[in-house]
């Protein structure tokens, strides 16, 4: 009996973020008064939109670098690719392929740069990545507002600012909108399944499963657990960490392109910022920790976070009679969950240290037991 309770307790404490989120969602769904079909069809759409981005976080977590907030760099690369695709007026799926081909080398370069920095900031990867994201904002704005337009001429009026200097604040992605989603869109009842997007996501899952089996994947797992040991075993720790970040950045680049083709609209200078927060929230809600993440975490996380995003504003309106409060609640939950997960991570580390310490108590525990009898 106690064993069972213990097990449940451990299960709950290990999955507390997921459980809290599930509970919130279950409360929010009936209050939102939204129909099941609406929520589901929206979920399908959002799933296709954002799960690729979340996958970008798996490898750095595996390599012990925590949540890669610097994936914003990859998203930026994807947006640069898209800017060129729009400016050159490449339409449909070809436009997306074109954007990817341009974005990938940029993201590899940025990822390599980011990896170098993170290697110099060991143990503080997450906050460094965060700051790198802000830094990248500046570089990207310089690129978008100065380099584009003055050094690289913009061809299309739709891309250029009115005064000709740089890229517009908002970029309509009409020509590539749904470029991937709508190649084959399977209609089942009220639901539309973007088959090709799902296929791409499935392919990525297969890649990640395969990658875990490779030597590089094994090395990442090793350095993720014990950098010192891996180093003394001859694994090039620095290089492996850089590779993890490079792949993550590359995936973020592709993920952002998939995301934006679904959104159909791009805020040239701010869209990339959201990528990091959302992906982090999703993977943490899915039950990942900053040291462990699986494909399953991604799926559960995307599913739950979006369920809440869809229902919370309306549920808030229903509960507090104010649409604003629901809106604030989603914001609050979004960032709250990241904080909670990070705090829990620290707490878990301490608990594990406590457990390990319990093993030292040999004599004292015996004495205590003896005293009881």
């Amino acid at each position, binding site marked *: 009996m106690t064993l069972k309770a213990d097990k449940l307790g451990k299960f709950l404490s290990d999955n507390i973020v997921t459980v809290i989120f599930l509970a919130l969602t279950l409360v929010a769904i009936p209050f939102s008064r939204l129909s099941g079909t609406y929520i589901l069809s929206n979920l399908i759409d959002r799933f296709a939109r954002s799960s690729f981005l979340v996958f970008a976080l798996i490898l750095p977590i595996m390599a012990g670098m925590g949540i890669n907030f610097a994936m914003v760099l990859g998203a930026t690369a994807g947006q640069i690719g898209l800017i060129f695709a729009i400016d050159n007026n*490449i*339409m449909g799926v*070809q436009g997306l*392929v*074109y954007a990817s*081909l341009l974005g990938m080398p940029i993201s590899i370069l940025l990822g390599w740069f980011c990896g170098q920095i993170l290697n110099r900031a060991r143990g503080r990867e997450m906050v460094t990545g965060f700051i790198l994201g802000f830094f990248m904002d500046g570089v990207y704005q310089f690129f978008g507002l100065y380099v584009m337009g003055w050094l690289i001429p913009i061809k299309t009026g*739709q891309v250029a600012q009115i005064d000709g200097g740089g890229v517009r604040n908002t970029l309509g992605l009409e*020509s590539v909108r749904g470029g991937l989603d709508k190649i084959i869109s399977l209609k089942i009842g009220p639901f539309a399944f973007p088959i090709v997007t799902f296929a791409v996501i499935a392919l990525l899952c297969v890649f990640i499963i395969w990658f875990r089996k490779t030597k590089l994947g094994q090395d990442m797992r090793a350095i993720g657990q014990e950098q010192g040991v891996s180093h003394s075993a001859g694994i090039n720790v620095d290089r492996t960490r850089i590779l993890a970040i490079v792949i993550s950045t590359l995936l973020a680049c592709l993920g952002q392109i998939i995301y934006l083709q679904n959104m159909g609209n791009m805020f040239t200078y701010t869209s990339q910022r959201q990528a990091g927060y959302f992906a982090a929230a999703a993977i943490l809600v899915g039950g990942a920790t900053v040291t462990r993440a699986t494909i399953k975490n991604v799926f559960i996380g995307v599913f739950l976070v979006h369920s809440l995003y869809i229902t919370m504003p309306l549920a808030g309106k229903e509960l507090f009679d104010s649409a604003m409060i629901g809106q604030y609640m989603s914001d609050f939950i979004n960032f709250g969950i990241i904080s909670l997960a990070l705090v829990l991570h620290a707490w878990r580390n301490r608990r594990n240290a406590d457990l390990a310490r319990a093993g030292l108590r040999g004599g004292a525990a015996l004495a205590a037991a003896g005293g009881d009898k």
Partner: protein
Amino acid sequence: MTKRSMIVRGALLALYIAVGIWAYSTGKGYKIFVDNTDPAVAGAITVAIDGATPVKVRLGGYTGIMVKGTGSHRIKIMREGAPDFIGEFRFPPESTAAALAVSGIRPGSEIVVTPVDPETRDR
């Protein structure tokens, strides 16, 4: 680096470039300005190119529609009280925009597409 891996890497690079060229050449968008200035027909027409969402063109006006790639395109013209017209046309090579005058279209005849400068028309 072994010879084999050099070949494979070379092939990959070639593929990369080839895909880029493919995306550029088949994905490049061109603008077709559909003019509805047919004195014989009074009223608006609805035009759909390559199965895209139909667009309404009012009488005396024109609408710009994006098409993907040069090559041949299908056009469907619908107007009230008349049978739908379905035809094909080729986009004039080496131009970025072209005008298609609905007035010139008669069943069976070739569709006339003339290159134009996009800057003088609606973007």
